[in-house]
């Protein structure tokens, strides 16, 4: 396993070309200045990235808590294993801020005990996942956008805030092979429900009323196919005159290589998977006229890695149920939030994820009522409330491994600091080993 823990030198040193997991951009050009065992500077990182790297300097929390009390790690492993071995329907959720190697270990454990295995994809991009299964997707790596993209559309996403270096590294400013003048060679369009910081950078901003994405995208589909539309109807349906959409479609057809980046603003508004399905369909159909691709904007951590790991190990990328001894898939039914809200899970393991953002009230209430294990690199409300909590080294800061960028490009994590804490990979492997012991002694 790629997991080197360098000793921390006293004099300032630089760890170069570090990948940042502060957002789905996974910029891999960060130079970390390490001084007396802490990260003093994160060169080239944006403010989000700085917060991620420099915010790690807190003193180490206790490695293990059982019911809020400091405990020996081995006791915590044992207790966690006992919880899982006796659970009938355990749930595994999270896998956000971790390496794909640890994600593999979590998937392995979920298989061994036969539980629900789910990730933030379910809560943030599930509708996209479902529409992807319906129509497919035409997409590309971010470097293709940098080298070829001459029409860049952001739909329901504000990268200036959520992905601060996206413009600089991938979409607007790079001087690429077929767009040698960079920004000057590109047209930039923002579609959103209100004027955003990103809209200020765009050549064209189209404000669309809330919950009208589907109608807008459907209008574009019709225009792509040269259908005659009734101007009044379009205005009523989309809140904008037909001429605006025709203007956008003309630009789309004129582009040599167009791209639509879209975010949860589209995927999670009313209409949900119909919205992303309409978008994926428009992009597909544009390829009859020119080259066009779509890309979902992923958030912090390694959510894309978790999708990949779950897919190659189980065949399904989220909302997997392993309870019958083999993988089954049904978003909604097997999504963590729903399984908890319905009160079905009788134990849970939360790995490197702040569930206060992901779960609704009902799910959180049920989680609090069942024995649950939390593995996290920092103390949170969730770790404090856990039956067993493990505080771990941080992937990408203290431990290595692999992270997948939002476009599925796998990148190595380069640890810059040493940590007295174990990595989540080791914790998960030790729990699995102990569970297997308990299972075999129960069987014999």
């Amino acid at each position, binding site marked *: 396993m790629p997991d080197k823990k360098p000793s921390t030198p006293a004099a300032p040193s630089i760890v170069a070309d570090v990948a940042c997991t502060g957002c789905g951009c996974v910029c891999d050009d960060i130079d970390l200045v390490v001084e007396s065992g802490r990260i003093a500077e994160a060169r080239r990182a944006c403010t989000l990235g700085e917060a991620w790297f420099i915010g790690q300097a807190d003193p180490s929390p206790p490695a293990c808590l059982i019911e809020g009390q400091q405990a020996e790690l081995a006791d915590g492993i044992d207790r966690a294993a006992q919880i899982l071995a006796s659970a009938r329907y355990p749930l595994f959720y999270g896998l956000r801020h971790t390496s794909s190697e640890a994600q593999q270990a979590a998937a392995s454990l979920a298989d061994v005990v036969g539980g629900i295995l789910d990730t933030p994809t379910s809560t943030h991009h599930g509708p996209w996942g479902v529409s992807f299964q319906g129509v497919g997707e035409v997409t590309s*790596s971010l470097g293709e956008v940098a080298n070829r993209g001459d029409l860049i559309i952001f739909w329901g996403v504000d990268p200036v805030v959520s992905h601060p270096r996206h413009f600089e590294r991938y979409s607007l400013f790079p001087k690429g092979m077929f767009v040698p003048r960079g920004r000057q060679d590109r047209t930039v369009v923002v579609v959103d429900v209100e004027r955003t910081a990103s809209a200020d950078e765009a050549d064209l901003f189209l404000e669309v009323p809330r919950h009208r994405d589907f109608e807008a995208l459907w209008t574009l589909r019709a225009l792509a196919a040269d259908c005659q539309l009734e101007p009044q109807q379009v205005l009523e349906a989309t809140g904008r005159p037909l001429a605006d959409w025709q203007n956008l479609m003309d630009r789309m057809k004129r582009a040599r290589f167009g791209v639509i980046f879209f975010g949860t603003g589209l995927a999670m508004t009313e209409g949900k998977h119909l919205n992303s399905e309409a978008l994926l369909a428009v992009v597909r159909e544009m390829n009859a006229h020119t080259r066009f691709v779509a890309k979902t904007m992923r958030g912090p951590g390694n959510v894309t890695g978790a999708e990949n790991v779950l897919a190659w190990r189980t065949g399904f990328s989220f909302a997997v149920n392993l309870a019958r*001894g083999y993988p089954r898939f049904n978003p909604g039914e097997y999504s963590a939030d729903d399984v908890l809200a319905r009160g079905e899970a009788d134990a849970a393991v939360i790995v490197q994820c702040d569930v206060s953002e992901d779960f609704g009230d009902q799910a959180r209430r049920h989680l609090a009522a069942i024995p649950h294990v939390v593995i996290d690199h920092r103390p949170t409300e969730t770790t404090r409330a856990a039956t067993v909590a493990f505080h771990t080294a941080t992937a990408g800061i203290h431990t290595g491994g692999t992270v997948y960028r939002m476009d599925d490009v796998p990148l190595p994590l380069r640890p810059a600091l040493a940590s007295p804490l174990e990595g989540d990979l080791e914790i998960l492997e030790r729990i699995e080993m102990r569970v297997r012991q308990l299972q075999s002694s129960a069987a014999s």
Partner: protein
Amino acid sequence: MPPNYLKIAGGTVYDPRHGVDGQVRDLWIADGKIVDAPRDSKVRPSKTIDAAGLVVMPGGVDMHCHIAGPKVNVARKMRPEEKRVAPPVERTATTHSGTMGSVPSTFATGYKYAGMGYTSAFDAAIPPLAARHAHEEFADTPCIDKGFYLLVGNNQYIMRAIQEREPARLKAFLGWLLSAAGGYAPKIVNPGGVEVWKQHPSGNVDDLDTRVDYFDVTPRGIIRGIAQAADELKLPHRVHIHCNNLGLPGNWTTTLETMKALEGFGGHLTHIQFHSYGGGSGDEDTFNSKVVPLADYVNAHSNLTVDVGQVLFGETTSMTGDSPLGYYLSNVYKTKWFSAETEMESGCGIAPIEYKNKNLINALQWAIGLEWFLLVDDPWRVVMSTDHPNGGSFLAYPQIIRLLMDRTWRRDALASVHPLVRERSTLADLDREYSLYEICIITRAAPAKILGLDHKGHLGPGADADITIYTPDDNPQTMFELPRFVIKGGQVIVEQGELRESTFGKTLHVTPDYDKDVEADIAKWFEDYYSIRFRNYPVGEEYLHEHETVPCQ
């Protein structure tokens, strides 16, 4: 201390590399390798498998399949409908659970290959930028040894080197790339065509001499340049070629030109079935087989080898590094479509597909594959493949073996497909039947040899102890579907189709010698065009787990 011997006693042994054709022999195994029988006749093996009456062969080698990496994984994500209805792979005390369908999950892939007596498999199309991902999946694909080919036929650095007439730079780059990615061989997919697709709506090249915009190179130049570089690097498997115009009527001339473009350099033409079609382009009524002239050319040119890419009737998933092909198929079959371009390197297309025996084109594809097996004279130069999952699953190999060994059954099968196949192909006239010895060649001995794997595909001392033992049966499909024993690296992992033990399996890769001076230029190239840092591109050794460097010689 004498080693711990495993002895396979009294089996009917097939080892074509050493001319052994069904002779009763003992095999001795120690430390994962086949060894000479101990001189001292008093030495006893610690374990003996009584193979009397059983057939003993080297483990199968699949030299062209799609089992790992981004494209395969997207296909898994995209096809839950298939997995829901497929029989599940259940977890046991020693194995992980998984799913099947046309694109099985990683663990299931390893178990199923082993269960069928195959002990090595090579993924045929990995974008170098995603090599790390492919290695991660390999680490979760147990029981078999594995390697992958790197997509290079639309690599912009290579096209630029050809444009600037710098063969030395091309060679150095190819050496660097294979080493950096932990790859096994260079793979050319629709050379130049994917780059044209990236530049133009519905773009593709028409023939070997179409010029690719911006780079001003031709498919012919790309093939010739890479073949020469591979030859000079002495790669164990020189170059693996998926020709232009896959699947299109009339594409056989492109295929013939590709063979010629190699100019005598060694080259392997893959899933040749998909590239052997006559007929007018756009005119499906004239679609027909052109295996005869192509097989004649292959028979007369010893620098060429092929694998077939046999089609089986039923539903599957098409997945390819040939993006324009993916677009074409999804439009023909009106299906969902996935496409992804990888910067500087390659493309990818995925679409569900169904081959129907009453459909003339599909039935001809089926017949054309069989013609290839039956018309190449030398079995050492034609290899079993379905281009899994493109023509069908690797699990169909036993069925194909029966079609080759039993001409009566083949005739019956031919009678059940579209009747025009008899007029548009020569299959009805072919009486050839494969012997067990020849089956052993096309499923293990030949692919191992073509891949330059000296330690696989045979049973001589020094070979990896990857061995499959079958119970003979009048129906060869039954025989090959359910091996009596499968031995991987000296360990018995399968008994009567049941997995006993899950071994890890190693990664096979190459590290050719190349001129290191090239790296400064590549670093500059990365800075100018890639979206990741040069330093983050090479795959570290920690990703290779158990691995073995196959020598370039």
